[in-house]
């Protein structure tokens, strides 16, 4: 009997000893965080492990991987708890500034978790937003990017792909960089389509929503003052009657006053009125509530409306169609921001102290004015968009060959738990379209069998960028040499070819090339760090920063949540 216990103990000790003895000696360690619940797709764990291996190739550091669910991840990096992590960014508006302010301005860097602050950079950012002259802006953007490669608060890695797989008879499918438009799609002989996705929304309140799927729905249901042409980034009048320019007096000479004329007779789908007062109230609401994680900073800081915006409604009451925005500084891209969902007017009765609940007592409360209305929500399972018969401008795209929008009567969006399930569903024609997100291997397979399955597989480069973030206040990343060493060690091509099977593009600057009007992108990381990893340089930089790294051993990696 004693024998039994002894045997068990020996076994346990033996295994334990072997485990301890045969593990390699621990080198100084750093922690890389990533999201494991699929927010960026199922490929994220593979990316994290590859980067870990690439950094460890220097032999100077060990990389511990840590992962979290998305809610905690977002909270943690915003609070500054994550020292080194993977992140992504999707453009909100068609301007290069959208890849610069959020990262290199002090306020932006704080919400992106890097806490980078550089007064000169702030000045350059303010200057480029104030100007409309491409040459002037180009100089600033170049300066910003060059500095970014020196300070390395972020390491740009790759640009993702955008893809959509759908029945080959569906028309009007276009991978628009900012607004995916269901209302221009058509399936001849059908009055509706079913779409599958793996995305989950946060909220359909424009004052809070700041993630892709929420925005995707909001863009069908809420119109903004200005909207985009079907396939590019040119602005069209939406709720407003014209796009403000200096020429038509919509923009003042000093660039600090923007005047919009609203159309008359606008209403939301519940009949409540939409006039200048409504718009003013909605914009103020976003800024006053300042919900954490929302895009409020786009209005307050980027659009320079400030904490207490000065918005005039000179002809209210009455026709109540004129709305005048007074900016603290001139902002060249104000119109662009007015086309983003955060600026979408909401009904006057929307919750003024918090996000409007999407469903109350089983009733959908999401009320907009767009081509579609959201008529049914089965949380996390199905969302039904139905044609808004009172849409104020069905002929919006008549100049582009689309007489009325929306074309289809209903769009039904179904959620699947993961990419493999989504692939199974589109493959067996359970759904008409699969949008966001399929695995790269599944994409390749579907591409191959597309013809026989009567499917179309559209793949385009998306302006979504993926990058590493350093919390520059946390040891050892407060030493720029450590950050530069990692910049030398990462192998972007390996990630692109092995994880994404070529469906992504290597990226050498936080400003992606080739999208918005003038291309201000400059591949600074390639210039400074090369396109292939330089392990020798990385190793020597790590060696030059020994104090920083050895300090990190004593740094606790345990997350400082509010323990009891």
């Amino acid at each position, binding site marked *: 009997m004693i024998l039994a216990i002894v045997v068990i103990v020996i076994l346990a000790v033996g295994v334990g000893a072997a485990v301890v003895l045969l593990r390699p000696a621990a080198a100084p360690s750093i922690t890389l965080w990533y999201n494991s619940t699929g927010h960026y797709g199922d490929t994220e764990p593979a990316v994290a492990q590859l980067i870990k291996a690439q950094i460890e190739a220097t032999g100077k550091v060990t990389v511990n991987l840590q992962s979290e669910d998305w809610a905690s991840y977002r*909270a943690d990096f915003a609070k500054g708890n994550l020292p080194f992590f993977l992140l992504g960014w999707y453009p909100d508006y068609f301007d290069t500034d959208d890849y610069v302010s959020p990262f290199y301005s002090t306020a932006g860097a704080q919400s992106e978790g890097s806490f980078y602050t550089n007064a000169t950079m702030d000045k350059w950012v303010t200057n480029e937003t104030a100007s409309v002259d491409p040459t002037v802006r180009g100089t600033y953007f170049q300066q910003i990017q060059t500095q970014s490669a020196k300070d390395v608060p972020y390491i740009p890695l790759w640009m993702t792909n955008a893809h959509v797989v759908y029945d080959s008879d569906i028309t009007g499918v276009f991978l628009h960089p900012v607004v995916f438009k269901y209302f221009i799609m058509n399936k001849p002989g059908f009055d509706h389509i079913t779409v599958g996705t793996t995305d989950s929304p946060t909220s359909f309140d424009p004052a809070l929503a700041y993630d892709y799927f929420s925005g995707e729905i909001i863009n069908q249901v809420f119109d903004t003052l200005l909207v985009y042409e079907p396939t590019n980034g040119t602005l069209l009048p939406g709720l407003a009657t014209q796009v403000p320019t200096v020429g038509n007096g919509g923009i003042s000479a000093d660039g600090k006053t923007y005047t919009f004329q609203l159309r008359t007779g606008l209403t939301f789908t519940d009949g409540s009125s939409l006039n200048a007062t409504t718009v003013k109230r909605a914009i103020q609401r976003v800024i006053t509530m300042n919900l954490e*994680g929302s895009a409020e900073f786009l209005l307050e800081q980027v659009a320079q409306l400030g904490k207490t915006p000065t918005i005039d409604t000179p002809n209210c009451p009455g026709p109540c169609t004129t709305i005048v925005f007074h900016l603290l500084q001139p902002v060249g891209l104000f119109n662009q921001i007015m086309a983003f969902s955060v600026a979408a007017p909401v009904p006057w009765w929307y919750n003024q102290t918090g996000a409007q609940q999407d469903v109350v007592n089983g009733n959908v409360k999401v009320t907009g004015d767009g081509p579609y209305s959201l008529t049914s929500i089965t*949380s996390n399972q*199905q969302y039904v968009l139905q044609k808004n018969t009172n849409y104020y401008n069905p002929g919006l795209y008549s100049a582009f060959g689309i007489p009325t929008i929306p074309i289809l009567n209903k769009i039904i969006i179904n959620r699947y738990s993961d990419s493999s399930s989504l692939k199974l569903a589109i493959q067996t024609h359970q759904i008409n379209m699969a949008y966001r997100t399929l695995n790269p291997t599944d994409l390749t397979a579907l591409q191959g069998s597309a013809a026989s399955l009567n499917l179309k597989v559209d793949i385009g480069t998306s302006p979504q960028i993926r990058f590493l973030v350093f919390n520059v206040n946390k040891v050892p990343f407060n030493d720029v040499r450590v950050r530069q060493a990692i910049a030398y060690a990462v192998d972007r091509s390996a990630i692109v070819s092995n994880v994404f099977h070529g469906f992504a593009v290597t990226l050498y600057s936080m400003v992606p090339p080739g999208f918005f009007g003038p291309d201000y992108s400059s591949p600074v990381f390639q210039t400074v760090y090369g396109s292939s990893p330089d392990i020798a340089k990385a190793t020597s930089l790590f060696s030059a920063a020994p104090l920083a790294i050895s300090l990190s051993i004593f740094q606790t990696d345990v997350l400082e949540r*509010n323990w*009891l």
Partner: protein
Amino acid sequence: MPKQGSLLAYTVSRLILALPTLLILLTVLFLVLRILPGDPISALEAGRRSTRDIDADKARLGLNLPWWVQYPVYLSQVFSGNFGTSLGQIYLGQPVLQVILQKLPATIELAIGAMLVATVIGVGTGIIAGSRRDKPPDIVIRLYGSIIWVIPVFWLGLMLQLVFAVGLHWFPPNLRYEPDPVFFPPPTRITGLFALDSLLEGRIDKFAISLAHLALPSLTLGLVLSGFFTRTVRANLLRTISSDYVEAARARGIRERIIIYRYAFRNALIPVVTILGLQFAILFAGAVLTERTFSWDGMGTLLLTSIDSRDYPMIQGTVIVYALIIVAISVIIDMINGLIDPRVRY
């Protein structure tokens, strides 16, 4: 007081016993959910709600109070059905109990389907094995029983999907019903169980569709559970076959076949009811994994989603409802046992 040995007395005594069981389960859950370190609310909400709201939520949920104060509040909340409102991204603001009751029928339907499959396969194979003792069918079935329950249920689900949905196109690969509500409107919701509702609606076509979608998930979960049925039914059959009254029947010259079917068979099935009850715990665990594989919108998916979004009230609510169901089922099983086997009542 109803007389000793009556069904009523037995039921009452089981119900009385159920309360402490429930209480203990709730306490264990309370310990796990509240005492373990961490401030889930802050972790959850920072990033989505203002600090003012976060503190208000904490105060409202009573999470900033010492645990001995929280405990009675927690218990009273549970028994009054007040599970609070969701704090997660997806169900923000919706009452937890309401969401749970919406998703519960899906899991119940899956559970019933899986139980049916498990019982039919398990009992069938158990009887075959028991009645052909130590012959090849018995050995094969015993091996099956040992192996089938160790196959990871999520792996089995994927295999079945690939073979029957993608390969043979016999069944749809996932979801509870066709994803196109215009071409295939789902049954009007009466109980929330699609198969039942479609029958109540009188629509055989809807019934067929719900069954088709129910097939693979039930098969997955049912197969894994059947192993246990097989072994237990076989063991019980063997025990009954060698018992005295069967020996007596044999001595009287009754044919073996009749002995098996009339005597042994029926008595061997008595413990099956008990097994059914015990299996519910395993069933719910397996259902979480199965629901994930088949994008089945039930309690399991709800629990996973709330874990992913750190929706603390929803996690608590879901887990408590599981506990309630399990206690309820054990009471029902005990009652059924009392009904068919009077010996138990004493």
